[in-house]
């Protein structure tokens, strides 16, 4: 695959994003599975998100809140029922529409999907190399970056083994490496810290912080509020396919902790253990 200069065409830019140069702009993104009709409950319902360039953006919500659906649509993996997504590139680039010019948009993104298979009969090193070569990168560049990433992820010992023999955490790390090899302007990571050990998680956080300081933008989805509060500067809360609140972490949480604010917004805490009085050893 050769690298085409897919410069976006400013002439065709639809309604201009409100803030200057967002890294990711989502407008009225909706997904209804099956036949759209009165009874159908949308998995994502008119989602609007504004991710500023250089931010570390957390997307939080319960299981089934629509995080993965939204991120899949934003990254070109799932065709939306309605709505638009734009991805900004470097500081000079105009945002491009993900579903109108997907090649240019995808070149700017690095994506870690959650719960998908990898080509796991390849070794870790082969998988990262494959990810680079698929993007039309130069062989030497791929080779150097692959080794750098493997070292950064602390996978030197496992790099020559097939990915199917990796533990869950190692698999996450190698997938993350594969998502970063083309030095994208935007990283979209769905549940990046799930089953990753604390040391590796700290490492990855450091890498990501460095990346945002260099001008990159990170979007992570998570349901670990504590982590999001410590790590992210912006946050959006989703529930039932809708965005309930978004902004900087301090704006969203106010005086409370993010977790309490989240429970407050989502409104779902039952008095734990109430109907389970029988749950005890005899």
């Amino acid at each position: 695959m050769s690298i085409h200069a897919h410069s976006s065409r400013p002439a065709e830019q639809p309604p201009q994003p409100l803030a200057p140069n967002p890294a990711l702009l989502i407008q009225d993104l909706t997904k209804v599975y099956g036949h759209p009709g009165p009874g159908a409950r949308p998995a994502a319902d008119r989602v609007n998100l504004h991710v500023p360039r250089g931010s570390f953006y957390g997307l939080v919500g319960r299981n089934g809140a629509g995080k993965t659906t939204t991120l899949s649509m934003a990254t070109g993996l799932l065709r939306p029922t309605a709505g638009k997504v734009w991805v900004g590139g470097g500081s000079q680039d105009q945002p491009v529409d993900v579903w109108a010019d997907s090649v240019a948009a995808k070149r700017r993104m690095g994506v870690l999907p959650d719960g998908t298979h990898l080509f796991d009969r390849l070794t870790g090193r082969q998988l990262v190399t494959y990810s680079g070569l698929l993007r039309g990168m130069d062989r030497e560049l791929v080779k150097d970056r692959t080794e750098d990433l493997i070292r950064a992820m602390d996978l030197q010992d496992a790099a020559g083994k097939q990915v199917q023999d990796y533990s869950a955490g190692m698999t996450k790390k190698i997938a993350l490496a594969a998502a970063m090899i083309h030095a994208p302007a935007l990283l979209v990571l769905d549940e990046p810290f799930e089953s990753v050990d604390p040391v590796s998680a700290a490492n990855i956080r450091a890498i990501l912080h460095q990346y945002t300081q260099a001008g990159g933008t990170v979007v992570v989805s998570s349901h670990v509020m504590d982590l999001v509060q410590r790590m992210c500067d912006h946050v959006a809360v989703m529930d039932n396919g809708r965005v309930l609140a978004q902004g900087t972490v301090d704006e969203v949480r106010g005086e409370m902790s993010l977790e309490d604010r989240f429970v407050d917004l989502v409104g779902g805490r039952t008095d734990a253990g109430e109907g389970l009085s029988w749950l005890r050893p005899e």
Partner: protein
Amino acid sequence: MASTRVNSPETTENSGAPWADPSSQGTVDVAPESLRPTGPSGPSTHARSIGPLTEGLRLAALKWHLLINTLTRSTWILVGTILGALYMLFIVGSFGSGLFMVANESPEVIRTVAVFFGTVLLLGWWIIPVVSSKADSSLDPSRLALFPLRISGIQIGQILGAVIGIPGIATLLITAAWITSWRASGLALAVALPCALLGLLLAFTGSRAVTALSANFNKQRRAGEIISIVLLGLVVLLGPLFALIGRGIDQVWEQLPTWAGYLAWTPLGAAWAIPADVADGQWVTALARLAISLATLVLLAVVWRVALRRALSDATGDAARSGSKSVSGVGLFGRLPATGWGAVMARCLTYWFKDPRYSATLLILPAMAAAFWFISGDGTGPIWALACFVALLMAYSISADVGYDNTAFTLHLLAPVKGSDDRLGRALAMFCIAVPFLIAMLALTMIRTGGWAYLPGMIGICAALLLAGAGVVSVMSARYTYPVPPPGASPMKTPQGYTLLNVIIQFVILAAVALMALPPVILVIVQVVSGEAMWGWLALAVGVVEGLGIFWLGIVLGGKWLDRRGPELLQEVAQYR
């Protein structure tokens, strides 16, 4: 786990549990003492202890729910299943009426037919699950391992479950027809019913025993791969049998009663011959055959039990974590061109050797060659088709590619790989495997037949099948896929939701590929008729040109289609489990 029901006062407090014994409900103490442990914690359970028969019934009910849920998941699966059921009814109807009519024939004919019917039925139940990748994966013991079930309960459940589903119902119906074939003698008819039950038990027990055994082998990854493949190879290597059939149907026909006599003394045929012995008054023979059948049943049940026990106690053992050895370089990725199609080609080629779902093909092909060699018998006819067949199958094989990727295909979408690069890489990797095989097969054909004059024409036909076939498949598989085992699964696993519609899709793809051979085939026929070598060379030229043309077209069109509906394709293959 066989604890007797505890009905002591302590247990009456657990009325909140829906499975609590209704008889012990009554006093609802929300008193504080209900919140602190009173008795010794241990195996005494609140859940009612149930017998193995109840366990079995519940498992069968589970199978029923699984079936219904699979059917109602999508309209197309439902439609496909109904079509499949109609087809099954047609088959059962024709064979069943045949069996019904046999009753009017001589006792010897009845006996022969009965024994052969039973043998084929048992063989079908025992072998098809392992070799056809259609093993019943519901009620998989490793999924039941967390539940306190008795092994006999699971066994009863799996036997009852075998009846639920199209093959089970078909077997019941046709066995009923088999019983009616004994109506000439009242005594035989009376004995036929228990014999049929015994036969069915043998079928279901054997089927599950074989499946459980192969599942155990599948645990050790390498061993599993090898055994699945060897089994496949064995079936194809039944070549000599085909050779025998090739000798002529008349001879075989005369031999059938004798063979039935032999078969009736094997575990496969014994149970089915008993009614005939009873009708003849040969009680000792009948008892001997009964003993053979019962001994087989016991043996199968014991093997099954052992295999189940091992499967249950080692349920998480996808083991072999240290399986693969470490490789330092990037393998083929360093050698093939650093382009999109080069990378896809390197990845696919790696998979052809590393993934049993692909590499099974590599072992089936030689087995197929052996089978064709034997079928050809003294003549030379069928071996001419060998190379064509291999070309056809290899071209067809890439139709499963994206399905095999499953959600790993996400990476191609994210990169994004150009559709034509994706198509080209997959096809080129397949060529790398197919061409050496084709050369070997053509050489084999030439050695066997000495028909060198037809070599150019044969090459033309193979080129058309392989190249044009790959083109056709590249287009069709961008739109139409069918369920295949997911990554990491044994090539033997049945994917969920596989129906007659998928068979039709596969058949249409195969037919479209076969059609590509038409132009060179016609030219070769002209050569055969006219005896002029020129036509053979023309077939070569036409085959290669046509092949290359359609291949190019297929890559371009298939690529465009893939570019347009990549996300939809991903959603489709993501459902294959």
